[in-house]
């Protein structure tokens, strides 16, 4: 899904955009790119809504079957969760939203150097979160939970994996921003490009807040 968004974002990154005025002459006063990003994120809400619902249903059925002693249902369940560890990685991802805001602030004020630092920091924190996810998946797998082991395994890896793919897409966008910046194409006039990536990034963060709360803490 993230790949689908990329042309929209990168389509903006063009050689002739130097004189870009935000919300110039559009009916709503917001630029087409920003409006499109909001619409895309609206679509994503339904994507994650359906995924989270499927997860909730699957885990409920898994727990019920296990409690009833269905002999086909094997492997571990939600007792695998390591809340302190995931809290830490969630904190890292949340902090990346802060650095994303700082990156946009910097570019908005024409501070190219600091914008590079903060964009890089955001990508690094995102990568750290991803590394944590890979570690978590590995631990779960070693403890006997594969993707095909049981209903919980399929649902858990699918939901968190989908989110991980979204984070990866975000990191790709951030890296592209860095490349652009070092080519000298990312200046004050183009701050909206950073803002767009930021919108996406914050959305992915918010989804994680929901996933962490619902998957790890509540259910």
């Amino acid at each position, binding site marked *: 899904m993230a790949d689908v968004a990329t042309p929209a974002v990168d389509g903006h990154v063009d050689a002739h955009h130097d004189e870009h005025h935000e919300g110039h002459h559009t009916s*709503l006063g917001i630029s087409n790119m920003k409006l499109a990003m909001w*619409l895309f994120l*609206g679509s994503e809400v339904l994507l994650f809504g359906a995924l989270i619902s499927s997860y909730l249903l*699957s885990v409920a059925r898994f727990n019920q079957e296990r409690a009833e002693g269905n002999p086909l249902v094997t492997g571990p369940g939600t007792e695998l969760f390591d809340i302190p560890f995931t809290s830490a990685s969630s904190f890292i991802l949340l902090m990346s939203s802060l650095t994303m805001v700082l990156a946009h602030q910097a570019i908005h004020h024409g501070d190219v150097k600091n914008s590079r630092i903060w964009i890089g920091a955001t990508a690094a924190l995102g990568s750290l979160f991803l590394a944590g996810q890979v570690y978590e998946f590995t631990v779960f797998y070693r403890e006997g939970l594969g993707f095909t082991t049981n209903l919980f395994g399929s649902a858990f890896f*699918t939901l968190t994996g989908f989110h991980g793919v979204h984070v990866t897409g975000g990191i790709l966008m951030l890296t592209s921003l860095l490349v652009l910046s070092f080519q000298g194409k990312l200046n004050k006039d183009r701050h909206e490009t950073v803002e767009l990536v930021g919108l996406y990034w914050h959305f992915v963060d918010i989804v994680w807040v929901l996933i962490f709360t619902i998957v790890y803490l509540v259910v």
Partner: protein
Amino acid sequence: MAIIEEPLALPSGDRPTVSNPLGGLSRPRGATGLKDWLTTVDHKKIGIMYGAAALFFFVIGGIAALGIRTQLAAPDQTLLSGDAYNRVFTMHGTVMVFLAVMPLGAAFANYLLPLQIGARDVAFPRINAFSFWVFLAGGILLNTSWFIGGGANGGWFNYAPNNGVAYSPSTGIDFWNIGLLIAGIGSMTGAVNLITTVLNMRAPGMSWMKMPVFTWMTLVTQFLLLFAIPVLTVAQVLLLLDRGFDANFFNVEQGADPLLWQHLFWIFGHPEVYLMILPAFGIVSETIPVFSRKPIFGYPFMVASGVGIGFMGWGVWAHHMFVSGLGPLSVAAFSAVTMFIAVPTGVKILNWLATMWGGKLLLNTAMLFSIGLVTQFTVGGLSGVMHSVAASDTQQTDTYFIVAHFHYVLFGGALFGFMAGFYFWWPKAFGYKLSEKWGKAHFWTMVAGFNLTFGPMHILGLQGMPRRMQTYSEVQGFGLWNMVATIGSFILGVGSLLILVNAFVSYRAWKRAGRPDVGPDPWDARGIEWMIQSPAPEHNFDVDPVITELDDFWHKKYAEDENGKLVRVATAEELAHPGNGEGVHLPAPSYWPLVLSIGIMIIGYGLIFSLYLCIPGAFIMMTALYGWSLEPADDLDADDHHHGEVEVAHG
């Protein structure tokens, strides 16, 4: 012509450096013929391609339908085996819904939206081309299952757990699943694009309540797509993971609940039926006022009822699942909402009737098809309301009564509406009118064939004939009406082809007559799309039209004199833009949307046959994405070329 031949100068006056990451695939300039169509980003050409592809798939779906009807013509037929029959009805439904009716809506939306709101093009022309190509890629992938797959055989809604490997081991379901996943990408990007276009690129003065009804209905449709497609995507991804990677989402042995598929599918599926009919509603809301010589009755109600349908459409999905054991509370709630949703639909019917009431009706082909929609949709709507009564639905569900119902709304409603749209906007798109003589023959054979085919299915359903039954025996007494329906279906088949015959015959007559100019406004119509030449010039409007009224073009042509009498104050020819595109910068064509779609299609085949095939697919996809990002955008500014860069030489 209007396509600029070399890179634009930068505002600073410097020559831009053009980097061509892949020389041969750099932006084609001044392309003609096939290359032009493959690389175009013009919303009008993309709209025409959507229409052509939809009609092509419509023929495929129609052949499948005739297969079904031939098999059912008489008792104990053996033309199609049980398995072949499953495939044929599955592909009929899937192709008609996803590859014929939905893209017809997209065809009209693409062609008309920018014209109706006075824009140069859509907000993201390359994404628009991508939406079409990726839809076509999905459609082709789905249809290759006829030749190289096991044949999709799970019905168009493809319920779990029947769609799992255990019960459907052949690759047919995979073709269905991945083909629609890919087509869904196009729907989603198309929705983002078209919504942005309507919200952001309206001509000066075109406020919400001055937008044409078709624009409104398309806006609602695209919002439905935007929010419905991801839910189907999730269902299909779960199925893909189950079938290809041994996940357990619909694995009943592991305690999974197969109803999850039904919920996800119908949360998508019910908005889906509204997004198929709303564009047709929009079309007849344009044609009926023109050919009744009256403004649309109750414009605000027309808009509000469309938006209301859009909202309520999300609260009725479980009426497809009344017999799945939801429990009385859910059934009662969904039953009530389903009854309510008939109200805004009824408002629309009333408004069309009130528009025609007392009008000077001109019963040409476009108007006949519009009246056909109003009449036949009402029949289908009435049988639809019957289904909201859960007790009665329990009797009718999965019988031919349901088949009759949804064909009355989708064929008698949506498709007739699209036909009205073809006759109405054909001169705008191609510069000549379709023949009225052939048009009337087209309409009346379709009406006769349609009602002969689907009318008897009400009776068959009430007699208890189940849907999707491969054959029946003589003693069941279904023979008579099945024979009638089969005869009707062949009449309908011939009738449906007459649109193509008509296009061909009319084109030849026009060519032989030396291509006479049909004029900007052949119907004395109301919308601003009639204010430009026919066929529509590549750049649409010479200058941004300024909108002061609903039906702005009409109000520029007619005004009231001192006695309150309507008089013509200007002719269309005086008002029409002469079609001088000098100084207009248009977005340049691009290969990348096509290449990206091909990459995605190869990944799709890889998911079916061998994951190794995904590697070249992904490589092509990533190349296309980066090629797309890096190619010089000589559309100057995708955001605001529509307003900013128009310098018109003439007065």
